[in-house]
Every structure is written in C-alpha cells, then in structure tokens.
C-alpha cells in the first residue's frame, strides 16, 4: 500500500480538528507529519487515549488517601494497600463500541484488556466483574447482543481461569443501539513486586511478546471516540479478536518475568497498541524510545508502518528489559511458547522514534503525545437539558394505586433488570481459584485471600435512570450503593474505580450531565472516604436514536479483616427477627415500579444524605463485626418488597418465608413498598441478639425498626402481599431464560 499524502483534510478524516492539526505541525517544528505520525497523533489524541474532554473534570475528584499506592492514571491500574504487605490492583474499562458491532469478540477482548492492565503491574488477577446495559429483551437484536456479550465474557474469563464473581445487568430502551460492556479486574500483588508502566535506563532493550501483529483493530481507539452509526457495521474490522489461551500464557510469563526482577517496566498493548505503550512508558520515565518495526513479528504480509503502529491485535505486551538479562526474558517466553522480539531501545533524547526499512518514519517528542501534557485538554460548554425540569414536574400522585399488590410484586420480579441473573453468571466460572466465598446473586461478592485471614468484597453499581433524572444525585447514589453493597457483607469500603459512560461531549447537554455526575461522585467519595484510583471514560455512546442514560459505573473494593465474618444477603435461620435499617420515604421517582407498571421514566431521583449513609454503613460493619446479625441486604430496584422477596429465596440451599408488618404512616402503600428510597438495608438477627442489635442501633442514632420474623414458606406483607416463596423464586429465576428461549 502506498502512503497517502498528509493534508489537513486527511487529518480531519482521522478525527482531528483543524486547530489540533496546526498544533501537531508546531510540535514537529513546523513540518508536515508523515502518514505514520498522523496516525500516531490521531490515536494518542483521540478521546479514548488522551481523555481530552474529561481530564479537566476528573482532576476535581478526590484522588488521595492513605490506602492509595499509585497516583490515578499513572499506572496500568489503581493500586491500594490492604496490609500484610499486600496490595490490590484493580480497574474497570469499557468495551461498548466494539460490543455494539461484534458482541462476542467485543466483550471478550474487553475482559482480556482489563486483565492485562492488572497483571502488567505484577498482580495476579483474582476476580473479574462485569457491568452490562442492554435495551429491551423484547428486541431480537438486543437478545443477540446480550447472548454474545455473556458468551464472550464467559469464554474469555473461563479459559483464563479467573472467576467472574459479580456485576450487574440492566435492561432499558435507552441502551438499545448502544449497549454498555464495562469489565473490571481485581488482582493481588506484594508491595515489593509491583511493576511500573515506565521506561527507564538508557540502552535497555524493549521487548514485544505475545501474539504477532496483524491488521485487526486498527483505529479501534478512534472508533471508540465517535458516535455509533449505520457505518459502524462497516467498522467490524476495527473490532479485535481475542485468544484467551495466549492471554493465559502471557499472564504466566509476565508474572514470572516481574518476579524474577529482569524487567524495568511493563505495559499492556491495549488501545493504540505499540504506539501508546511505547510512547506512554517513555513519557512517564522521562526518556525516549526508539523502535525498529522490522523486528515486530507480523501475522500479515505487506503491512506498512502506519498499520503496525496502530494495530490493536490482542494479547501483546511491551516490556522494558534490564540490559544483560535478555536471555532470561527470552527463556521465560520460550517456556510459555510465546513469540518475542527485541524491537527497540530506551534512549535519552525524549523522542518517540520509529524506524522501518532503515528509514525514520516517526520522530516526535514523547511528551507531545502524553495525556494531559501537549495533548489537548478541553472543558466543554454545558447546558442543562430541558427534559430534566419537565420530568421533575411530573405529578407522581397521578399514578393510579394498584389493586393487587401480589401481581405488582410478581411483575417486578419478572422484570429482567430485577429478575435473577443465574442465566448470566452460570455461564461464567465463578469459583475457579477456590476463593469465592459469596457467589453472585447477593449484594457484593466476597473473595478470600489465601495465606491471610482477610477477604475482599467487590461490586459494580450504577442506576443510569437516576443519573439521567438527576446527574449529580444519581452519581452520589451510585457511589453510595456500591459502598452499601460492600458494607452489607461486613467489609469496609476502601476505594473505587470508575467507568464513565456518557454521550457526545461536544453536545452541551451531554457535557452538563458529565460534569454534574463527576461533581456528585466526588462529593460522595469524599464523605465515604473512598478515593478514586482511576478508571476509564467512554464518551460518544450515542446512535441515531439518541444517547444512552448517563451511566457512571462505580467499581468498589472493600476489605474484611476477618473472612469468617462475611455476611450474606439472604435469610439464614427460622425465627430470626427482621429489621429495617434506615427510613422509608416513599420516593417513587425513577423507580422500576414506575417504568414496568406504569411505563414511565419520570420524577426526580430519590434523595440521599451522604452523612447519614456513612453512619449507616459504619453501623452495619460494626454490627457484623460484633456478630450480631445473620444477613444484610440493601434495598434497590423494586424497593422494599423486592428486597424482602430476595432475602427469602436468596440462599441456594434452603428457602425461608417471612411475616412482615410495616407501618405505612401517611405514605402511599405502593410508594413505600416499591419506591427506591436510598440508605435502607434489611437486616435479620437471632432472637438472642435482638436486644444487643437494638442497643447498638440506638447508640449509633440509627433508625432500626422491627418489621417481622423469618419463618414458614410464604412471604406476607401486611394484608397486601401473600405469596408462596417457591412461586416467587420461580418467577424470579425463570424470567430471563424464558425471554431468551422465546
């Protein structure tokens, strides 16, 4: 292929603006970039790599705290201290655009990419989580996407041998053309074995190892930085293809190399492949890097430098080796049957220089490519969207009260967003590595750490509908709920990673949602003392039918000092007392009840008082540590009634009924039972511990109301609901399989 001449027009086709193109020419000392250089700038300055439209806002988030061991964005993933000389590396990332076009490979490579980010730090992955959003399951295309994404996640993670332990799946029309696939990985590393994403030591060899480089995924990063359109289908070739077996070999080899101490730095070749990994490590190390593309193992003939530099072929790693220890690196790669090649060297001139067939095809100052340095940073125009006031002013009380509450509960349990997700997580290996103490289906997963007494609790969360109705509050709720889920197991929430899924940032309404949500997230994190360790921003989640709900997904990690204390979400003993921790307010805005029963997305998101939330979580954790309670389950979609039903049939072994009596005071019965008021948890405890629990709640100033008792085989709530638990469970577990088989 002959290289085209570089012009402004070509730059614009590459997604660069006129001013950006001019800036590039300036950075190059006034000359026109080569075709390869244009490619390099276009990917490095794409939204995906440069965070140009988000960085200014992200800098407002709380990014400090005593548990943080790495500065957000500096390393491949976030890193926090959990004591015993151990650290947790974790990160979440989106693969929305590829999954919209090719769900199986899109999701699979999403898992692969995030795993590499974690093991590139020297951390052995111990768990995966997935936060998914789809349109309505009535739609056949959505079923195809859902099925493909779940298979893709399963096949990749299962083969790699990393358990997929938690996550969430929501279904809403807002995601019809633009599903969200956010994958999170969690890994464990000893403090003294953390590897950095850095190039250092002039003369050190630069290795590429893993799969050979092909034409797949060229411009994947750029593809992820534009709206989905009819033409997206033609972008299928931008979607990479995953090979989990090679990933497994790379993982073992990388961890072995880091343990041996024969490498200086490691970075995954993710978005923008060789270009980003090489230039970013050099920029971080304050050095230069020179690559010889003739040394890159290729899988296709006739590839030009532009293609080699931009390829996003999966399962490749960049390693800066220690000079003199090349043979050890080669031997390790050989042991794991991996392709490897020394294809570059660390230099002292702070330039990203690339040679091909003896000619220099790229010669750029490394800092000009790095996010937040010469790469552009924009703060965009904002405008509060009109729909917000319109939806807030909807008269909630115009909604008719139901006649049959049993029917309402059954309909909610059958709503795919609420219904049991066994169809999903039974396709994932949730138990490999033999650490999963609390399996999917409860609030947060709990994974013990062998050779210590500790366990980690982890969860992803975000109700996009709340964020749509009230971005600032919705983001606070996402943080609060993720932390609450973790606290329900007894773990102390430590830190978060986030995946910010939004529409087009150049549209003022979208950017307003983004800005508000980031501000809300920051507020909530400051109160809960859970700093942000990094994450990922995914803009341009739009298609011809509109934007998605703004969906800032939170990935939360919590720590249990004593794994034995891990508490489940479901009832565990006949005769236990049932309490409601928190207060009923009957806030029905944005609820699943309004959406499913009344076909409306309206009202405001439920209110939240973050100080109260923090006290509530502190109380929960203390009560669990004092072994006072048997179960804790937070109320979420579907409200109190759904949460109670889940407590009854949640156990995989024994099912329990419950007899519940609620004081409605002056609240509407349907609003109280199905409203999604925040900061509420259903707690069960034995008769013997009732007095002590009540006393602890009183001293903590926590509303803690006795509402009934565990027992029998029916769930009764006042004279409104009376249903056999076996029937409820059948509805709950059967809904998704039934829709998928239809």
């Amino acid at each position: 292929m002959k290289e085209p001449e570089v012009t402004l027009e070509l730059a614009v086709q590459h997604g660069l603006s006129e001013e950006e193109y001019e800036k590039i020419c300036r950075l190059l000392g006034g000359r026109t970039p080569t075709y390869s250089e244009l490619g390099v700038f276009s990917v490095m300055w794409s939204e995906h790599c440069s965070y140009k439209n988000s960085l200014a806002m992200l800098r407002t988030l709380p990014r400090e705290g005593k548990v943080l061991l790495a500065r957000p964005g500096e390393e491949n993933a976030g890193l926090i201290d959990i004591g015993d000389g151990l650290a947790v590396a974790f990160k979440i990332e989106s693969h929305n655009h590829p999954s919209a076009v090719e769900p199986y490979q899109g999701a699979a490579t999403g898992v692969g990419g995030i795993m590499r980010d974690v093991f590139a730090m020297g951390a052995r992955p111990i768990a995966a989580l997935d936060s998914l959003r789809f349109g309505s399951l009535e739609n056949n295309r959505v079923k195809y996407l859902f099925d493909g994404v779940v298979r893709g996640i399963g096949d990749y993670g299962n083969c790699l041998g990393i358990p997929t332990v938690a996550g969430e799946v929501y279904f809403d029309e807002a995601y019809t053309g633009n599903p969200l696939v956010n994958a999170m990985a969690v890994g464990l590393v000893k403090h003294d074995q953390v590897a950095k994403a850095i190039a250092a030591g002039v003369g050190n060899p630069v290795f590429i190892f893993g799969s050979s480089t092909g034409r797949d995924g060229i411009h994947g990063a750029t593809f992820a930085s534009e709206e989905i359109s009819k033409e997206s289908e033609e972008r299928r070739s931008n979607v990479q293809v995953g090979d989990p077996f090679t990933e497994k070999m790379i993982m073992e080899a990388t961890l072995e190399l880091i343990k041996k101490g024969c490498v200086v730095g490691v970075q995954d070749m993710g978005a923008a492949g060789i270009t980003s990994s090489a230039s970013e490590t050099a920029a971080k190390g304050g050095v230069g890097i020179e690559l010889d593309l003739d040394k890159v193992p290729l899988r296709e003939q006739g590839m030009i430098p532009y293609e080699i530099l931009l390829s996003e072929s999966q399962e490749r790693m960049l390693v800066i080796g220690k000079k003199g220890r090349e043979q050890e690196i080669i031997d390790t790669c050989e042991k794991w049957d991996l392709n490897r090649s020394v294809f570059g060297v660390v230099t002292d001139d702070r330039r990203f220089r690339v040679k091909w067939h003896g000619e220099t095809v790229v010669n750029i100052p490394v800092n000009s490519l790095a996010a937040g340095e010469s790469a552009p940073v924009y703060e965009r125009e904002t405008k509060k969207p009109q729909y917000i006031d319109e939806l807030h002013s909807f008269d909630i009380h115009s909604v008719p009260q139901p006649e049959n509450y049993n029917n309402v509960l059954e309909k909610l349990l059958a709503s795919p967003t609420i219904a049991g997700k066994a169809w999903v997580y039974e396709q994932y290996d949730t138990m490999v590595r033999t650490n999963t103490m609390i399996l999917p289906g409860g609030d947060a997963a709990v994974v013990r750490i062998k050779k210590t007494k500790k366990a980690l609790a982890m969860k992803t969360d975000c109700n996009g509908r709340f964020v749509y109705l009230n971005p600032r509050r919705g983001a606070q709720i996402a943080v609060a709920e993720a932390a609450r889920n973790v606290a329900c197991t007894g773990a102390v929430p430590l830190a978060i990673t986030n995946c910010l899924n939004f529409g087009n940032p150049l549209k003022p309404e979208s950017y307003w949602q983004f800005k508000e949500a980031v501000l809300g997230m920051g507020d909530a994190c400051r109160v809960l003392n859970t700093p942000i360790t990094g994450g990922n921003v995914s803009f341009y989640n739009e298609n011809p039918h509109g934007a998605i709900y703004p969906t800032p997904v939170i990935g939360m990690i919590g720590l249990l000092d004593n794994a034995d204390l891990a508490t489940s979400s479901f009832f565990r003993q006949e005769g236990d007392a049932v309490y409601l921790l928190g207060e009923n307010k009957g806030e029905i805005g944005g609820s699943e009840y309004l959406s499913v029963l009344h076909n409306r997305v309206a009202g405001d998101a439920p209110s939240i008082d973050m100080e109260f939330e923090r006290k509530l979580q502190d109380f929960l954790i203390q009560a669990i540590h004092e072994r006072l309670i048997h179960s804790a389950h937070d109320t979420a979609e579907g409200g109190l009634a759904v949460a109670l039903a889940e407590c009854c049939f949640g156990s995989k072994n024994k099912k329990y009924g419950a007899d519940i009596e609620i004081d409605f005071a002056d609240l509407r019965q349907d609003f109280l039972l199905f409203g999604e008021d925040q900061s509420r948890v259903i707690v069960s405890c034995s008769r013997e511990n009732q007095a002590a629990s009540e006393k602890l709640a009183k001293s903590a100033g926590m509303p803690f109301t006795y509402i009934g008792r565990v027992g029998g085989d029916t769930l009764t709530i006042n004279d409104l609901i009376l249903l056999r638990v076996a029937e409820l469970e059948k509805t709950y577990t059967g809904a998704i399989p039934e829709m998928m088989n239809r």
Partner: protein
Amino acid sequence: MKFGIVVFPGSNCDHDVYDILRRTMKQDVEFLWHGNHTLNNCETIVLPGGFSYGDYLRTGSIARFSPIMQEVIKFAQKGKPVLGICNGFQILLESGLLPGAMQKNKSLRFVCKYVNLRVEINRSNFTYRCEEGQILKIPIAHNEGNYYLDAERLAELEGNNQVVLRYCDADGEITEAANPNGSLHNIAGIVNKQGNILGLMPHPERASERILGSEDGKLIFQSLIDNFS
C-alpha cells in the same frame, strides 16, 4: 503420599488442587511440567481442570500427545492411581485410559454451578469414605461434560459398576432435570475396570473447605489417600 499435578499450558485448576492437597489434606504435592518425561516418583497423578492447549481442536485432544502423558499412560497401566478432574477427565478419555467421549453440553453453553451427585458405589478406591447413595454437593464448570458411549459398551460400563457418580436432584433421584449437560445415564464420574483411574466432571477441590460452602469433595481425596497409601 506424594501427589504429582500435571501442568499443561492452559491448566487453571492446578493451583486449586495443589492447595487442597497440601494445606487441607496435608499431603506431599508437586507440579509436573507437561514437556517433561518424568513423574518424579509421584505415587498419585492428578490431571487438573482448565483448558489445556486452549482446548483447541477438541478438549483434551492435544494434551493427550504431550510428553508427560506418555508417562502417565504407562503409570496408569501399571495400576497406579490417576485422578482426572474436568479437563483432566476429558484428557483421560482422549488418551483411551477411560472409555467414552465428551460432547458439548446439551445447552451449548458453559455451565458453572453446584450440583448434587449420588455416590453409586463406595467399593471404589475413590469413594470408599462415602456411603452408597450419599448425596455430595460439588460444583461443575465446563463446556463439554456431556458424556457419550455406545450402547453396548455403556451396558458393560454399568454392568461392571464403573459409574461412580451420577447427577441427581436434592433427594437423590436421577432425573433429566438434574442432568446439567445431557450426559448419558446422568454420568458424572467413572472408573476404569481395574479401579485405579477416576475421571469426573465435578470439581472436588472447590468443595473441600467449610468457608467455600461444602466439604464433600474431601471425601474423594480422603478415599484416594486411604486406599493407595
């Protein structure tokens, strides 16, 4: 007793079995590399779960030709104990050490969940610690656990009491609803005629600690240790 756990490229339950045998069952354990021709004087060989060689071509079909398997086959033919779990079971089938073959699960999906297993015979070297008819709660995690054998040889397998474990419901009934993968006769685990080789799809190493929700898997490891020590 000294256990050897074979590590193929793509094995991913090797460390899980190692951990249970060493930490819970207090046995000597070592890893055996697929490319080697020695079993290092191990007295029992475990072929662990995972995706050996990526499970490309067909599960277990490439692993069967690895150098170490030539040694394992000789070892097994001498009547020494070999345990194949999940992918290990598939490799035993491909190696001809056990009869039959695996097809894709009837659902055509990967399935990971706890299942109930009925112990069919406790005279076996691997189930002697169990009661006949006892129900074990042990998880499965596989894409291809749909056991197949032609009618004639299946009758022979049954006649010889080689079926050790079957998928059952909570009451121990062998029903179609309790069959997670379409396996013939709800077969979950079989032994060879001599009784020194067990292949099973469920993962006993995942159910050998109270903290993980079941200790039933220990019965299988303990039986093996008692019988072959």
